[in-house]
Structures are given as structure tokens and as C-alpha cells.
């Protein structure tokens, strides 16, 4: 039997329509897509992967990853990774572990509730991919703990930071939003926008930086993760195309979802990956802005979005704002991190003369806007923030963009509460679905504002000298709105 026939047999013929229960019971309304298709069963995943091929190919990817890890331990590469890069991993690896796990949960849900058999199978396979990605991140964390003298984080510290620290609430809220959407929105948000446009910054540009700083395990892990991403991207592109091609009614929804997830991805990656390319690494192969230009502007906007414009799709509505933030975004977030370095568990260094030279070369207005700040630091200014930053009610990053001097904070009143947003993009997202995003927990600035320092230290899991306290014990009176699942 030819692979294509086999694929039909093992995908479409495994799907059945329920007859013992109503459709409402089978797919509750809140999980049913608002998109329409004349016949969902006709949709095909371009990859058409068979489970037996999937298992064989993934097993080989895993073998290669573990071979690199083993070699790193055996020959001592892991211990020789540049210490600044390991500080990046204390931030990035923690965010990634839980992000991947959230993605796994999201795709299990799409596999259950998506209307097309081919989407359901592809999402099931993707859920397994995401689970593998989370596990690779955990293996890497274990390697740093075991083989690097940097005091890497133990799992109980990692989950506590992810659940409570302000710097990670942006990442956490992004994924909680993503896994509680319409199933086709989940595909557009994850597979089309996040994975096609943005994950190349995470899994190609960041590993290039990792490899340049001696972290071969990170390089190998992320290149194999990104190789799964090729399947995910193809699914996102095919779903978007099919929705736009088959029913004009879908255009408005797809456009809104592209606009929303473009802005959410832009803000999250600028704040979390910007520093991983521009600040942490001693050797910097590519700047955040160059990587954005290549993968987001040239590939996504000038490639996929322009190809889909024949069906009416327009570039993301806040594209220009995103582009105008790139010159200062990573510098702004690094200054924010530097000012709150006492409550962070990774080292936020003062840029060296070499770093500054590189910044000036890659970002022409760096000196005019940020030069004085770092000159003041060099002259001994402390620059400690005495309070937590004011946080945007959508992206949960500080209202500090485009740069501290011209920072924006836009108010919206909703049901008697005042909300603040860092940008037009975040404000638009809130107004479109205010009931989804209304406040369920105090923002950390208010939550921690009047508490004594010991309570705050326990909440943030950081001792005054910056070492993790080593535990998930929450201080009295703290109940997370939605605890991160402790499965991993």
C-alpha cells in the first residue's frame, strides 16, 4: 500500500461521528470552532505522517540528542560552557520547560476538539512532540546542575519562579491564553504565527548563540526541536489557507487571530528572547533585530502573509508598532532586569566595553538612548528599582516600551476597574475579549507592595543575596489563581 493510501486508512478511517451522544455533549460549545468549512473531512495535513515513520524518525532524533549530551558529560563540554550563557539558561530554560508543557496540553485539547480528522491526528502527534521538547529542556537543566559550577536551578525552584515571579508571568499568561482558545485559533496562534514566524528566533537563532558559547547540547536539542516545528508550521499554513480559501466568513476571524497572536508573540519574544541574543552571550552571532528581520519580516510577512493576501489577509494590524520597538526593545528590558537584579535568580550583568561596541554597531541609536544609563552605572550609580515595575494587564511585562523615557501606559476602564496596557496592541487585545482577560489575581506590584521583606522574599523564592530559597512553599496568605501543573 502506498504511504498516501495508508495515511488515509490510518487517519480518516479512524475518525467517527458520534451517534450515541449529541454533538453538544461531544464537543461543548466553548470548545467548538467558530470557523466554517464545507467539509472538514476533506482537509489534509501536508505532511501526512504515518505513526510508524513518526516513531522511527523521532527515536533517531532522540538518540542523536542524547549522544551529544553524553559526549558533553564525557569530554567535559558542559562544564566549559561560558558562564554568561548558563545565566541565560537559568532564565530561558525555565521559561521553555513550562512553555513546552503548556503547548503539549494545548495540542491534546486541539486533538480532542478540532473538527477535522487530519487536524486531530496532526495535533496528537504534535502533542507528543511538545512533550518531548519539555523533556529535553529538563534533561538540559539536569546537565547544568550536574556538570556546571554555576549553581543551576533545581525543579522546585524553577516551578516557583515560573508560577510567581513577575518576569515569567508574561510567558505564563501567553500560554494560558493560547490553550484556552477556539481550536482553530489555537492552530493559527501556535502553528501559523508562533511557530512559522517566531520559533525560528528561539530554536535557530538562540542555538546558534548557544553553540558559539560552547553549549552543544543546547544547539542539538533546539535544532531537533525546530525540526519538529517544520511539521507544525506546515499544518498551520495549510489550515490558514484552507479556512481562507473555502469560506469568506472565516477571513475576519483568521485576521483577528493573526493580529492578536502576532502582537502577543512579539511582546513575549522581545522580552524573553531579546536578552538571550543581545545580552547574555559573550559571543553574539546574530542580533535580535537581525533575526526578526530574517524570520519574521522576510519569511513570514513578505512570504506567507503576502501569499495569503490573495484571499484577503492583511499584514498584522500592529506590525508597524512592533517594528518601531525593535531598536530599543531588548535594551529596555535589560535595563528593567538590571534594576531588579536583586530579586532575580540569574545574573544580570553590566554590559562590558565589548558588549557596548557590539550594541552600537547593531543598534545605531543605542548610545543616544542608553549610553548615559550605562555610563552612570560605570561611575557607580546603583540603579536599583525600589518597587516592582508597573505591569501591563495583557502581556504582563512592564509598561516600559518603546524605551523608559517615552514609555506608554494606556488605561481602559472595565466593570469598575482600571486596567493599564503597555501598547496599542495589548489594549486592542483586551478590548476585543475583555471578559477573558479581566483581573483574577492582584498584579505583583500591588500583591507585594505592602508586605514585609521576608514575605516578599519567600514569595519570590529569592534570598537577599540572590540565591533561590529552594522550595515551593508559598508564604501565608498566597493562593495562586491557577497553579502551574506540577506534573513535570
Amino acid at each position, binding site marked *: 500500500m502506498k*504511504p498516501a493510501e495508508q495515511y488515509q486508512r490510518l487517519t480518516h478511517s479512524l475518525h467517527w461521528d458520534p451517534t450515541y451522544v449529541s454533538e453538544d455533549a461531544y464537543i461543548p460549545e466553548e470548545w467548538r470552532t467558530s470557523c466554517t468549512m464545507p467539509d472538514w473531512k476533506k482537509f489534509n495535513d*501536508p*505532511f501526512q505522517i504515518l505513526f510508524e*515513520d513518526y516513531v522511527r*524518525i523521532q527515536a*533517531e*532524533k532522540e538518540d*542523536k540528542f542524547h549522544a551529544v549530551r553524553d559526549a558533553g558529560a564525557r569530554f567535559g563540554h558542559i562544564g566549559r560552557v561560558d558562564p554568561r550563557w548558563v545565566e541565560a539558561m537559568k532564565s530561558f530554560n525555565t521559561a521553555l520547560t513550562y512553555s513546552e508543557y503548556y503547548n503539549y496540553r494545548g495540542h491534546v485539547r486541539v486533538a480532542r476538539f478540532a473538527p477535522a480528522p487530519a487536524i486531530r491526528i496532526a495535533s496528537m502527534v504534535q502533542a507528543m512532540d511538545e512533550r518531548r521538547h519539555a523533556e529535553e529542556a529538563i534533561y538540559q537543566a539536569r546537565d547544568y546542575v550536574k556538570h556546571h559550577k554555576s549553581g543551576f536551578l533545581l525543579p522546585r525552584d524553577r516551578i516557583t519562579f515560573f508560577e510567581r515571579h513577575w518576569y515569567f508571568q508574561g510567558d505564563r499568561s501567553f500560554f494560558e491564553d493560547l490553550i484556552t482558545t477556539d481550536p482553530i485559533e489555537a492552530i493559527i496562534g501556535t502553528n501559523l504565527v508562533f511557530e512559522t514566524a517566531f520559533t*525560528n528566533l528561539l*530554536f*535557530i537563532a538562540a*542555538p*546558534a*548563540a548557544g*553553540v*558559539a558559547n560552547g553549549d552543544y547540547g543546547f*544547539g542539538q536539542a533546539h*535544532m*531537533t526541536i*525546530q*525540526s519538529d*516545528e*517544520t*511539521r507544525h*508550521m*506546515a499544518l498551520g*499554513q495549510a489550515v490558514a*489557507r484552507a479556512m481562507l480559501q473555502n469560506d469568506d466568513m472565516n477571513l475576519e476571524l483568521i485576521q483577528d487571530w493573526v493580529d492578536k497572536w502576532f502582537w502577543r508573540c512579539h511582546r513575549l519574544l522581545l522580552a524573553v528572547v531579546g536578552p538571550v541574543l543581545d545580552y547574555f552571550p559573550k559571543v553574539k*552571532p*546574530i542580533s535580535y533585530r537581525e533575526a526578526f528581520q530574517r*524570520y519574521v519580516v*522576510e*519569511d513570514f*510577512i*513578505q*512570504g506567507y502573509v*503576502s*501569499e495569503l493576501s*490573495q484571499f484577503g489577509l492583511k499584514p498584522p494590524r500592529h506590525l508597524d508598532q512592533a517594528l518601531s520597538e525593535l531598536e530599543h526593545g531588548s535594551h529596555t528590558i535589560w535595563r528593567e532586569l538590571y534594576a531588579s537584579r536583586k530579586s532575580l535568580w540569574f545574573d544580570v550583568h553590566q554590559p562590558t566595553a565589548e558588549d557596548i561596541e557590539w550594541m552600537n554597531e547593531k543598534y545605531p541609536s543605542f548610545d543616544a538612548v542608553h549610553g548615559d544609563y550605562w555610563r552612570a552605572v560605570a561611575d557607580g550609580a546603583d540603579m536599583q528599582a525600589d518597587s516592582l515595575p508597573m505591569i501591563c494587564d495583557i502581556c504582563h511585562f512592564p509598561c516600559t516600551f518603546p524605551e523608559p523615557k517615552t514609555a506608554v501606559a494606556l488605561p481602559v476602564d472595565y466593570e469598575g476597574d482600571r486596567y493599564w496596557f503597555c501598547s496599542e496592541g495589548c489594549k486592542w487585545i483586551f478590548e476585543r475579549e475583555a471578559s477573558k482577560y479581566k483581573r483574577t489575581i492582584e498584579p505583583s506590584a500591588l500583591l507585594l507592595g505592602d508586605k514585609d521583606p521576608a514575605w516578599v522574599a519567600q514569595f519570590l523564592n529569592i534570598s537577599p543575596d540572590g540565591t533561590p530559597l529552594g522550595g515551593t512553599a508559598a508564604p501565608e496568605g498566597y493562593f495562586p489563581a491557577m497553579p502551574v501543573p506540577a506534573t513535570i
Partner: protein
Amino acid sequence: MSTKVQRSVVGIELMAGEECDAIVSAVLDDIPHASVVQVPGMVQLDVPDRLVIHASAVETYLGREWDTRDLNQVVSAYRGYFTRWDEEQVVLSWDAEDRGDAPNV
């Protein structure tokens, strides 16, 4: 030049190694002016409009059999649509209807 997109470049980014070298060599035989850029751990291969990887050409360079499905092991990023991916050819194109090269006779 494809009129379907603003920037008609397709390409793949490959994990460096034997398979990557064979794929790049096979493509360069067909498209000598392809852009090949080395970055740490990876190779970026970009060409105008469309890219066809013929399994037989890759096998010649590798000196062994090569299953096109294994391309998924080494491709980390791409630009363009995969419009065909079977035993003989992998096609990356901005033309969603591109079904690849005519068979060699």
C-alpha cells in the same frame, strides 16, 4: 520570479553534517547560484522561487540509500510551501500548486 509573494525566495536551514552536505551539493548541481551560508551548527540554503530535492541526487552524494522522509531529521526551518514530499522529490515553492519536476526519462 513568482508574482504570488512580495519576496520570492524559498529555502531551508539544515543541521550541519553529512546529509546536509549531500543535500546542498545536490541542489547546487541544479541551481549553481543558490546562496549557501554557514552559521554555527547550521547551513542556510536559499534559492529564488522554487527548490526541488531529488532523492536520487542526494543518494549519489551520500553513497547510500536515502529516504526523503528523513529530511525531517535535518531541516530546522524553511521558507515557502512544501508542495510535494514523496519518494522521489521534495518540492518547496511559493506556488501552492507546484507538483515538482517532470520525471527524468
